[in-house]
């Protein structure tokens, strides 16, 4: 019987071992094999969505991802063979003896799971290498954003021309005014860039923009304003479009009518776009830029939010922590039920991340720092409450007994025997929480809870990586300083 157990292992890895009484080993092999088989088939069928037969699925995924499919199949086969060999070996060792050789099982299984994991998480190293340069521009701007920290006042030289989309009278050539810059477009009628049904971009009508009367030999930016009034700088291939004027102050530039979304019925009458050429000259002294000032004030807001949440958290957590301390509440069943209830609530509240509380608070009190303070306070109360109550539970009972013995009331006992013992842990936990709260409040802004996170996300969405970079720098410096300060204070206090 035992000699032929390997036949079961041919049927399914692990079966043979189970038959031989090595149940755990068998179950390990069996579940390992079935799990990876199921995962592999899931990935294969995703690669071959239109195939219906197993063979079809295998063929198609071999075509699309040959190395992945091949590797997985080989490893599965290897696992299966190992299962058979293991059974044969076990038969030789005999029942009851401790059998070795589990390592190779583990190794093949880990390899299998790794290969599958690689594919499931869509790891794509070639793309990462190939497209690295795409990350360079934003990365550079984030790492050294300080050019955007200062600005100067500007004088603007600009002129615009009308473009008609769809039905209507084609706009005429604008009339030049002497002494003013002047542009005209050809043609003055066209269609916007679009996406077709497959999502491929279709460029709009190419127009040529002629300009004159501008400052000679100067960079000129091209802006666009669509019929619903949103104004943006034209980009071609991701880069802003600008031209250099010639020595007479003239230029010519071609551009497709850019992509714009106009909700149906948003505009009555003809759709009029404007194309605009603009030269900007800095005048006056350097000064701090709007984003910089905005970030500074948001950073202050962030720190204050963290501080407020900590203070409020402490205020509420202190009384609650006594209700959640076993050694204070024990004695009566009412006390113990309050204790368990407090423990339960605190654990639940604590396990919900502040960012989720922020989402709730934003719905509740609207966008802004107040929502952030609520979120952080709620979380602080729960986690400080837990830490404090553990500190209370950890205090020495001796002094309490001694103070009680003098005839002290409950309140006096708390003041003289409990609180003095709590001072150190209390201060240390509070500072630790302040640290966490300031870190958290930088993030909480991202869901609308006010603070620097709010503007950071906004800058990232507007692709203003320099402003985003300034925010990142401020956050990093603040967190580092805070880290140091809080460690230092805690060191001194205890």
């Amino acid at each position: 019987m035992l000699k032929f157990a390997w036949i079961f292992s041919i049927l399914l890895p692990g079966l043979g071992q189970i038959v031989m009484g090595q149940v755990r080993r068998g179950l390990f092999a069996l579940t390992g094999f079935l799990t990876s088989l199921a995962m592999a088939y899931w990935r294969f069928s995703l690669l071959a969505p239109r195939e219906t037969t197993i063979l079809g699925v295998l063929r198609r995924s071999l075509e699309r991802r040959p190395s992945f499919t091949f590797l997985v199949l080989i490893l599965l086969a290897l696992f299966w063979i190992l299962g058979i060999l293991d059974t044969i070996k076990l038969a030789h060792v005999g029942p009851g003896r401790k059998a070795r050789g589990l390592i190779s099982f583990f190794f093949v299984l880990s390899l299998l799971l790794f290969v599958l994991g690689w594919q499931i998480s869509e790891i794509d190293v070639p793309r990462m290498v190939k497209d690295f340069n795409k990350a360079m521009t934003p990365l550079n701007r984030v790492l050294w954003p300080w050019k955007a920290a200062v600005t100067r006042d500007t004088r603007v030289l600009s002129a615009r021309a009308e473009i008609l989309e769809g039905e209507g009278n084609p706009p005429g050539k604008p009339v030049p005014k002497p002494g003013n810059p002047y542009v005209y477009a050809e043609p003055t009628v066209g269609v916007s860039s679009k996406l077709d049904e497959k999502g491929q971009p279709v460029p709009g009508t190419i127009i040529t923009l002629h300009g004159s009367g501008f400052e000679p030999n100067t960079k000129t930016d091209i802006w666009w304003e669509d019929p619903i009034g949103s104004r943006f700088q034209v980009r071609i291939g991701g880069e802003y479009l600008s031209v250099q004027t010639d020595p007479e102050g003239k230029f010519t530039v071609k551009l497709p009518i850019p992509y714009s979304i106009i909700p149906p019925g948003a505009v009555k009458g003809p759709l009029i776009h404007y194309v605009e050429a603009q030269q900007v000259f800095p005048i006056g002294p350097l000064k701090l830029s709007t984003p910089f000032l905005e970030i500074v004030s948001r950073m202050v807001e962030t720190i204050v939010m963290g501080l407020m949440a900590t203070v409020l958290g402490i205020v509420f957590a202190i009384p609650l922590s006594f209700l959640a301390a076993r050694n204070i509440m024990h004695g009566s069943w009412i006390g113990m039920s309050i204790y368990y209830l407090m423990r339960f609530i605190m654990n639940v509240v604590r396990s919900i991340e502040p960012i989720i509380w922020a989402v709730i608070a934003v719905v509740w009190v609207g966008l802004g720092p107040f929502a952030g303070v609520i979120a952080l306070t709620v979380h602080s109360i729960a986690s400080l409450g837990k830490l404090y109550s553990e500190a209370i539970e950890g205090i020495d009972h001796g002094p309490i007994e001694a103070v009680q013995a003098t005839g002290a009331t409950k309140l006096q006992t708390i003041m003289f025997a409990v609180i003095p013992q709590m001072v150190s842990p209390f201060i240390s936990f509070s500072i630790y929480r302040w640290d966490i709260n300031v870190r958290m409040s930088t993030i909480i802004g991202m869901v609308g809870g006010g603070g620097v996170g709010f503007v950071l996300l906004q800058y990232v969405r507007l692709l203003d990586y320099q402003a985003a970079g300034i925010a990142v720098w401020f956050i990093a410096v603040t967190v580092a300083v805070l880290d140091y300060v809080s460690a230092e204070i805690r060191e001194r206090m205890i």
Partner: protein
Amino acid sequence: MLEVQHLTKVYSDGTAALKDVSFSVQDGEFLVVIGLSGAGKSTLLRCINRLIEPTEGKIIWNGVDVTKADSKSLRKIRRDFGMIFQQFNLVQRLSVQMNVLAGRLGYVPPAMSLLYRFNEEDYRMAEEALRKVGLLEMAYKRARELSGGQQQRVGIARALMQQPKVILADEPVASLDPVLAHSILGYLERLNKEEGITVICSLHYLDLVQRYASRVIGLRGGQLVYEGSREDIRRMTDAQFKEVYGEEAERIAPPSLLGGTKDA
């Protein structure tokens, strides 16, 4: 006079620490409680001022049943019982002076202590108590900076602040070396002799018992198994002592030291 009648204590986990213990203590006695570890000595001492709630029995203090007292009168009763502990039980973070002042908590209005405030009179008493135990110059140190013997003297000063009629001492010298043990017990003896304060004290060492006790009771497994006068104990041999006490009994120091030093 303190009368303990049929005192029984069963802890919530079912341990019967005291079983029907009855005895009485006259004013001015130096009563020593002996017994094996786990015999119920600490439980007995703590039942007297109801730090532990007795399960059954009565404790009559000057005609008042302590076990029936409500929290207000219990507060008054507790003031009469100063207590000192094996582990001293000082509040380590507070100053020596504040620890001593804590002995007045049974007298001052509770609201005042929210701000750690006491009367002028209390401060004067604290000074006096600290002088008595020879620690006046330590008043502003934190309790944790003191040595074990010094801490126990602070413990005595704290008990004195209660102007107690009885001092309950739960193995007051078990964590101290022999010389310090005599010093501490010397203070208790002086309070007993000079101020007439009754002392109820649990002790471990036969020679200390013989040296200081005016009467002894022995506990074993929560039951009162021995009661003897000063003369009974003086006559007691080590073998008899061990019978009550168990094999752990031992002498603390060679007899030559006995009754010698009073101060360390």
